């Protein structure tokens, strides 16, 4: 694997804490790798696992989820639902051969800009070690497919001529 692989990472962050932590990291000029494309969601509980699967299937190498610490959710207990879905999602990903470490859930409050930057730095390093995912390549048939289709067309045309 080439050393200059830069993973594409999608980060879904909660409006009330982690997204603000990222803001804080920015205004405090804390450096962290630019690999994460952050998408703001209203709550980590809004995170449909389909978002993660979609990101991976469209070419993301990793997905980071970030929400308020357990017990501190703006919507009472929705981050616990995020937690449960996260473990179910990892269970599912293992079943289809995706390294479960490509998805990570972290809890960061609005005051934890530095901790958020650190979590991103660690996650980027870990995904780098895993290498590219390149999921869409998984379902492309190899070059034999078009040849096989051509053969059928040719065979059928020949059969038509006989009749």
């Amino acid at each position: 694997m080439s050393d200059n692989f830069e993973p594409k990472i999608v980060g879904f962050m909660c409006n009330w804490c982690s997204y603000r932590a990222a803001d804080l990291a920015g205004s405090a000029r804390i450096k962290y790798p630019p690999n994460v494309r952050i998408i703001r969601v209203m709550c980590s509980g809004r995170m449909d696992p389909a978002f993660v699967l979609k990101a991976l299937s469209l070419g993301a190498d990793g997905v980071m989820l970030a929400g308020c610490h357990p017990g501190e959710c703006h919507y009472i207990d929705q981050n616990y639902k995020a937690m449960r879905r996260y473990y179910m999602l990892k269970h599912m990903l293992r079943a289809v051969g995706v390294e479960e470490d490509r998805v990570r859930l972290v809890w960061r409050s609005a005051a934890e800009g530095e901790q958020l930057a650190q979590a991103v730095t660690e996650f980027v390093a870990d995904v780098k070690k895993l290498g590219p995912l390149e999921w869409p390549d998984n379902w492309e048939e190899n070059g034999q497919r078009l040849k096989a289709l051509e053969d059928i067309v040719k065979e059928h045309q020949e059969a038509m001529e006989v009749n």
Partner: protein
Amino acid sequence: MSEGKAKGKLALYWAASCGGCEIAVLGIDTKILDVAENFDIVFWPCATDGKVRDVEKMADGEIDVCLFNGGIRTSEQEYMARLMRQKSKVLVAFGSCAHEGCIPGLSNLDSKESCFKTVYHDSPSLDNPQGTVPRTVTEVPEGKLHLPLYYDTLKTLDQTVPVDYYLPGCPPEADRIWDAIVAILEQKLPEPGSIIGSDTTVCDDCPRTREEKKIKKFYRTWQIKPDPDKCLLEQGILCCGIATRAGCGALCPQVNSPCIGCYGPNNGVEDYGARLFSAVASVIDSQDPKEIDAIIKDGIPDPAGSFYRFSLAHSLLRRSKLKGKDGGAKVAADAS
């Protein structure tokens, strides 16, 4: 229904499927005579003596409606899907296989090599001392013999050619098939691209009593004797009714058997399995990460088979990761 009106042309074809959909068509019973009254069945290899070359000789769009069941697993099936698309005005993905890949699509959890190994070498009921496997090309003195190419990944019909309508179900229920045929005859079809069916879930048809869902432990069907009146999911049995389109009349839950999701997702759901496991996971009755993980791992040993039993090939990930020669994804030489 039609008096002296010119008959339409109807075709039925099957690809990677079990044949249940063909039988389901006959499940409409004597109404099949009404179908025959309104349509000339121009091609239906399972029931009538039609040849592919008859279809090839037709003009494009000559067939009014083609009900196509089965997924696309071989080059021959892809050829037929393209042919039926070209010759048909309306192409209907009929049944779960054509719609979502269904059970044949579960082989996407493994590779072609592994499927061949099981089927032609390891199966206990097999007698194959010479280890014969089908080959795409075989040379004989008279020339070359061809067999269709077996694909690594089963694709659904709409991943292969554009599809006008979907009729879900494994197999579609006879009443729903008849509703669709009537809609076609009366030209009251919904917008192209839609699924012909209802817009609610199996839960809405299920007579069981529902209260608050909290799951402390998942049970497999043989581990528990379910209460016949209470919601199965509330009893810890993984019932897929919450995410599955209605249309069957909740047949399975009424006989103490959980819904397994054959009618597929409701409108607007991109990934059936994700919708289902998201909902199921969120009602696990614990706030402790370790306990949550244990409840999931103990209770659902086969998540892909449980949540994507009918829809793996049509899911966002489509298949499991192929272990190619380069250790990761294989090289795709075919860009089409």
